[in-house]
């Protein structure tokens, strides 16, 4: 790796010191101290290895724990020994003859720090001693600082202004305390400031070289904290979490915001943090294979390759140039995308225009255009420059809308609501209607498709007729052979199972008279219909009648041909009769399949599904494929919260998987009328109110539906009250309220649903009555329609369905007998009550 130079020394290095000019370094290890030359490009050279002569007096051994280069006298350095002695030695002296030796500490010395001619040493015995190296012998110990804070792990002098002596220093000790001492108060038992820095040992402290009062501390609790003792020594300004114990923390000599840290345990990297962006390190230097013991910033001016000097137990000293670092910000994702379903398909992307150089929120300096592409060299140069160029970090998220040609939610919604897919119109009329709807939205190609389908499939009606025997009454008789309207009735739900294999998807049945029509005959829809008893006829929408043809394929071809003819020749021409036509074969089903495939391909699944639903089984679509279309469409509808359209599709599609959707998602609950809490159905007991409801007439517990007057609050079983109010208007409880005389009852806008509780609420009733207009209240209900339970289409989404259904279920009769009883002409008053209870229940919800 370029920019990384290393050298091996004799054994594991425990400390480092750099010379004032940055050209040399000392690496202290157990048996020797090595002088290294850093300024050589390409490598670090070992200049001298200093090793003490073996001496019998172990007290004279200088097994160094720490070294520090004296900046005042660059030929001298200090070493703190494991024995507790502090020695002042000459740089480069191979025999390590000591200039001076100070012994005071009783345990090993952890740190030595020069301050001019003064030397400070901190030791495991908890003492900090200040030595004046100009003195000799025992007078050298000028001051001791002892506090009960335990072994001292690190020391740092306060940076003074040039010329001034430094006056304060900070120590980091075992007791989680970083203590600031003042030289002028030597001998004091307690420090000037004591910062409870960490929750574990304070392993390292460093005073900021430029900002008075700022100290960084690193602890074994894996935190690095920056304190400002001038402002507030209780809370740190910044807390940085690191991966493992922060054994050495050092401010950068020139950049005010950079802190380097390394760990003495598992993490073998040196991290450079910008204290303003405390979550991700700015740069990471690696290169060692064993635990790190020391590191130093190595970037004095004039050096070609500023970098970081680090030493480790793997007996190597590595100098890594800034450019060789890894920059974690480069591998962090800075943009994200999300498509939305809303109008004009929004895309969200998050920007952090990361200033890859620093990666922090910073103001813009300098007018230069920012570095747009992250490149290590660009970073390296800008990272540690004196006049860096930064770019603002955007912590914004951008919503972009209006993607052309893609899914337009407004059109989708409009068409979902306005397409006629239910077969209430004839095929051709449905297609025309849908074409108009599509054209109104500007989807001309879709509109054209609909019109083509109208032509192709024209007035062909459903495959199977069956004479709906007896059910639904009027529809049967209405379609007399002579009556002009052979209207198709919408029969809700898949109630025609098992009748005939050939059902239309939406239960489309054509009513017709049973006289003269042969089985399997096809009648016709449309504006005019004439039935000829002896022939099967097909008529096109414009009034043509084509001779009946048995074979379906031929019939469809005939229809196509007729369409062509009709188109060509206009209205009124070409009344072709009877079965002797030979028409060219054209199976257009395949073409329609391709049309569907095309629409699916461009993402317009709405058109696919609409076509499939209108054409029904004529389309002969592969069941699996159709199912995918349906599910895809339902998913899109759900995203846009078009619940009515969802249930419309679910109910009309003849596919078990699809129609099961309604049954899966709906649940019905019963709730208490007083408090609205869910009732325990087994006992009909409301836990909250702690009561049963008793019927005012029979005094029995009301299980199920409960009807009450809004005025006086009395109520009971619906049947009993109905009977009562048939004869009287007074409240049965004797409270004097005239329950039945309230003339302000408004019509309920919605049809009453006497559906039974539970599943039946979602499934259509078996009665083939049309979704009639809302029953008028307060008036005599016409007998032909009166009392017949009207099915209300479930048009709610899953959640709302539960609630509304609950309201409905609770307000209506809970058993089949109610349906029977409701066929009697219902009394107005109970209906009023019901409607009011319905409305009030709904308001409550």
């Amino acid at each position: 790796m370029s920019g990384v130079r290393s050298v091996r020394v004799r054994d594991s290095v425990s400390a480092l010191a750099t010379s004032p000019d940055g050209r040399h370094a000392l690496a202290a290890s157990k048996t020797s101290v090595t002088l290294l030359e850093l300024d050589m490009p390409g490598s670090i050279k070992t200049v001298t290895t200093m090793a003490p002569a073996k001496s019998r007096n172990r007290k004279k051994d200088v097994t160094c724990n720490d070294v520090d280069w004296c900046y005042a006298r660059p030929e001298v350095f200090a070493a703190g020994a494991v024995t507790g002695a502090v020695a002042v030695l000459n740089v480069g002296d191979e025999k390590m003859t000591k200039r001076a030796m100070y012994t005071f500490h009783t345990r090993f010395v952890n740190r030595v720090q020069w301050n001019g001619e003064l030397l400070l040493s901190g030791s495991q015995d908890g003492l900090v001693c200040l030595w004046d190296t100009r003195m000799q012998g025992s007078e050298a110990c000028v001051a001791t600082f002892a506090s009960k804070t335990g072994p001292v792990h690190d020391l740092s002098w306060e940076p003074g202004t040039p010329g001034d002596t430094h006056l304060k220093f900070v120590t980091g000790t075992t007791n989680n305390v970083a203590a600031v001492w003042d030289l002028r108060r030597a001998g004091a038992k307690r420090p000037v400031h004591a910062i409870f820095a960490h929750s574990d040992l304070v392993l390292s402290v460093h005073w900021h070289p430029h900002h008075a009062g700022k100290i960084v501390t690193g602890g074994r609790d894996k935190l690095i904290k920056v304190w400002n003792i001038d402002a507030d020594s209780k809370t740190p300004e910044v807390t940085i979490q690191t991966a493992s114990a922060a054994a050495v923390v050092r401010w950068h000599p020139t950049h005010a915001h950079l802190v380097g840290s390394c760990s003495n345990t598992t993490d073998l990297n040196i991290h450079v943090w910008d204290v303003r962006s405390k979550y991700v390190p700015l740069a990471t230097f690696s290169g060692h294979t064993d635990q790190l013991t020391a590191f130093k910033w190595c970037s004095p001016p004039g050096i070609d390759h500023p970098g970081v000097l680090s030493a480790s137990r793997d007996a190597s000293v590595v100098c890594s140039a800034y450019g060789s670092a890894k920059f974690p910000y480069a591998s962090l994702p800075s943009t994200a995308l999300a498509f939305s379903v809303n109008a004009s398909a929004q895309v969200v992307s998050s920007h952090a225009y990361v200033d890859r150089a620093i990666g922090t929120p910073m103001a813009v300096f300098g007018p230069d255009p920012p570095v747009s592409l992250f490149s290590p060299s660009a970073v390296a140069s800008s990272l540690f420059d004196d006049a860096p160029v930064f770019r603002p970090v955007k912590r914004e998220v951008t919503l972009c809308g209006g993607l052309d040609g893609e899914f337009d939610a407004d059109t989708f919604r409009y068409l979902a609501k306005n397409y006629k897919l239910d077969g209430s119109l004839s095929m051709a009329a449905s297609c025309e209607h849908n074409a108009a709807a599509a054209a109104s939205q500007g989807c001309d190609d879709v509109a054209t498709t609909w019109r083509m389908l109208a032509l192709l499939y024209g007035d062909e009606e459903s495959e199977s007729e069956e004479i709906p025997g007896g059910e639904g009454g009027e529809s049967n008789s209405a379609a007399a052979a002579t009556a002009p309207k052979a209207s198709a009735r919408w029969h809700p739900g898949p109630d025609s199972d098992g009748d005939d294999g050939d059902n239309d998807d939406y239960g489309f049945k054509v009513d017709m008279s049973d006289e003269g029509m042969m089985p399997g005959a096809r009648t016709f829809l449309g504006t005019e219909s004439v039935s000829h008893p002896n022939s099967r006829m097909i008529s096109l929408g414009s009034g043509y009648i084509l001779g009946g043809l048995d074979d379906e394929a031929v019939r469809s071809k005939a229809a196509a041909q007729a369409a062509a003819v009709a188109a060509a020749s206009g209205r009124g021409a070409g009344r072709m009769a009877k079965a002797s036509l030979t028409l060219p074969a054209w199976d257009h089903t395949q073409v329609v399949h391709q049309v569907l495939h095309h629409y699916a391909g461009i993402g317009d699944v709405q058109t696919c599904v609409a076509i499939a639903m209108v054409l029904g089984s004529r389309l002969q679509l592969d069941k699996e494929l159709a199912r995918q279309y349906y599910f895809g469409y339902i998913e899109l509808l759900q995203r846009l919260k078009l619940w009515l359209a969802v249930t419309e599709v679910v109910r009309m599609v003849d596919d078990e998987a699809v129609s099961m959707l309604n049954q899966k998602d709906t649940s019905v609950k019963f709730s208490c009328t007083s408090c609205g809490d869910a009732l325990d159905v087994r006992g009909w007991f409301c836990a909250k109110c702690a009561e049963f409801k008793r019927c005012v007439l029979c005094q029995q517990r009301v299980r199920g539906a409960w009807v009450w007057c809004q005025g006086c609050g009395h109520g009971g079983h619906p049947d009993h009250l109905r009977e009562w109010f048939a004869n009287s208007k007074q409240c049965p409880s004797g409270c004097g309220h005239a329950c039945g005389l309230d003339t302000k009852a408004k019509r309920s806008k919605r049809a009453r649903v006497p559906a039974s509780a539970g599943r039946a609420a979602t499934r259509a009733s078996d009665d083939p009555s049309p979704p009639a207009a809302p029953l008028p209240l307060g008036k005599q209900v016409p007998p032909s329609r009166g009392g017949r339970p009207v099915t209300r289409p479930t048009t709610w989404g899953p959640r709302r369905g539960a609630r509304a259904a609950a309201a409905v279920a609770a307000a209506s009769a809970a058993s089949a007998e109610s349906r029977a009883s409701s066929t009697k002409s219902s009394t107005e008053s109970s209906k009023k009550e019901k409607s009011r209870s319905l409305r009030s229940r709904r308001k409550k919800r």
Partner: protein
Amino acid sequence: MAAQGIETGHEDMVHDAQLDYYGKRLATASSDTTVKVFDMVGEAKGQPAVLNGHSAPVWAVAWAHPMFGSMLASCSYDKKVLVWKEETAGSWVVVYEFSEAAGSVNTIAWAPHEFGLVLAAGSSDGSLSIISKTEATDWTVTVVKDAHRVGVNSVSWAPALPEGALTSAGKADDGSAALCQRLVSGGCDNMVRIWRYSTQESRWLQDAELAHHTEWVRSVAWAPNVGLPTSTIASAGQDGEVVVWSRGSEPHWSKTVIAQLTETPWSVSFSLTGNILAVAGADGAVTLWKEDLDGEWRQVSTLTDEA
């Protein structure tokens, strides 16, 4: 194209932003260890709910299908995946914490709701974890170890289609064909891998290995599919290439390199109907690509924000 900037108020980089199922809420994940949930419409617009639970930069968020309630998952550098649920409007609690990964969890994705509440998480330790919860049981985790050697960067689920819907014209008449769980993952070994859950063996098997990229695969996305017999996957690599892989009825995946970008594409994403592919580059520009009729992918437009 009109662009609207939203000031998130995060203190550090924003790494991910996702809109929920209905497009009404936005969740953002940031390096300041918080996730913020913004309401895009309504009175509470602009006042985010702040979710604190991670202790390191949060890389990604993902919204679950609304049928499970208001649920959100977030993954972070602190090796955890947190699943949040909105108990009352505006207040979110952690309902599940997954911390078995040995490295930063880089990516999460919820499976299609037909499979239930299932979440896939890819981590820097190379493992792919599938976390799921059913009504009856509690949260269970299945781990695919060594999905990618150095780390998994991105996962994406295939849309729920019946088994064999892609490969054969055979239909399942009962309508209850088993839905096949498939997902695609991209990782630091430059590979895109497709995994399939085999119900017979009750474990995840590698279905295919797609090799093309020469550098880390940063993002993969499986296109939503409506009724088309093809499967389409897009992958973006650190080498600047965006590749679209597609498979029809044959088991072989064919690839098309649609773009060679100068900036590292950080993420790819398909639109809801699977027609448009959006590619986000490192400089914040988003380009949109669309396949035209002869199978060529063209750049349709570019979205940038006005600085």
